[in-house]
């Protein structure tokens, strides 16, 4: 079994913890509990006849005044960078999060999660235009969550 450390990055309250919970336990809660520090969840997945164990790092959301210690990024095989479609400022900070990931893990793969797509009106959903390696996800309605993690792993092993 091959272990891979992957990170979830993004501002607070964008749904990092919820995406992990959906992916690992297939559960969701509307309640918000602030993540403190880091929490590692494990998930086993078979891809192209190989077994992997993902060690998914849920990290306390960064705020402008509080940066994540970058040595937590060490040894990560990839990152999921999450933004909240209902909060513009969390989307504009996506590149920043990616950049700090790449400052430690040069060239390592990533995917973007534009989360909480369930909250957008249908009209806006249709008009969404996302950059490369991006997914409109919903932890609440289980949209694109598996795809998100699998695509990252695909990029990691390819």
């Amino acid at each position, binding site marked *: 079994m091959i*272990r891979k450390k992957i990170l979830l990055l993004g501002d*607070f309250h964008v749904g990092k913890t919820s995406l992990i919970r959906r992916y690992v336990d297939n559960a969701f809660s509307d309640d918000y509990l*602030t993540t*403190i*520090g880091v*929490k590692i969840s494990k998930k086993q997945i078979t891809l192209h006849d190989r077994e992997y164990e993902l*060690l998914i790092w849920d990290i306390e959301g960064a705020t402008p005044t509080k940066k994540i210690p970058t*040595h937590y990024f*060490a040894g990560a095989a990839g990152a999921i960078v999450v933004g909240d479609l209902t909060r513009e400022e969390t989307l504009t900070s996506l590149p920043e999060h990616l950049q700090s990931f790449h400052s430690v893990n040069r060239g390592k793969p990533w995917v973007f999660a534009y989360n909480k797509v369930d909250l957008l009106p249908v009209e806006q959903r249709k008009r969404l235009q996302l950059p490369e390696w991006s997914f409109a996800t919903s932890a609440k309605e289980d949209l694109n969550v598996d795809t998100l993690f699998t695509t990252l792993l695909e990029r990691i092993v390819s």
Partner: protein
Amino acid sequence: MRNVQRILNSILSKNVFEYILIDRDANVGDFSLEATHLLGEKLVHGESIFDVLPELVGSEDVIEEIFNRGKQSYAIKTVEKNGRFLNIYLDYFDSEKLLILLQDITEVTEIRRKIMQVSNQTTLLSNTLQSIVDSQKAIIFLVDSNGKIVFANKRFHEYFDTDDSPELRQELLHTLLDEHRDFHALHKSVRKGKDELRIGQDVFSIESVYVDPVNILFTLTPITDLVRKKEALQNEIRHDPLTGVLRKQSFDEELRKRLLSKRPFALVVTDIDNFKQINDRYGHVIGDKALIQFTEVIRKRLRDDETIARWGGEEFLLLLECATPEEAIDKCETIRRDLEQYRFEAGLHITASFGVSCPHEGDDAATLVERADKALYQAKSSGKNRVVFLN
């Protein structure tokens, strides 16, 4: 030795650490009993540390470096595990072993989490409020007890085009405050009912309220369009739709004001001669056109502060400025001649008669108009196309 010291120190300071020793292959060696409890995983000699502490996956390079360099330590802080919070420290122990220290920080972290929870929720709430306030068409700002603007919404910055320079702020204050000394004075005047504020061409309805004992919230809602419409409407109501001159009612107001001013003036009633025949013979379209041209000819001779109004069909009222009655009579005479020589629509020749009077001590509007009307009657009955003054 330093690390043994560290274990000792920690125990002595009641800052309890559990420990695990691992070898160069990252396999578990000795460990303290409580470490198992803390991790919620059974520790087995010779087993890979990565199975019990997956947090260390990815830190292989760090572990190797600690062995090779003999110093350098590494920490992953505030790791949630098994329902508890831990700090994980990696330290050089000896050339064969590396020390992993586990510190239980659950209690203090739970407190921190509560604080963060509140602070995050507050941030979210204030972000939400901010975007609500920013989405308003109104200009909204908050002034503190020193009269300083401590908050302003997006519309405020767009409208006043402010960066935060002090000069701009000062200039802006002058515009906003108008004739008022400061924001508190402005607030008082708003409370007394002065609820309109003009900035250049723009008109705002202004509201102000103390949101707490020190801060006043001002809201400026743009009502320029509304005011323009209202003004246009008022104008429409005050004026005769055909000729554009004042209506009788508005003229009466002017006349009453003029009487109070005590300065001399003349009131003139004028009537187009034989207008009924024009209407009968040429029709109402020509008749209407004649009325319009009639007022145009008269207006050419009026000063800005003189007034003309339509009383009824073809009868008009004038307020003329004059030092003596003769001046007014002369002016009417000039107008009369102008009309006589003017070529009206369809080549018509039109004349008019004039009754002139000047106010006496104690005259009210009705008496004055009555006297001028009497003068007009005399002008008509003595042959029309003339000016008669009655004293």
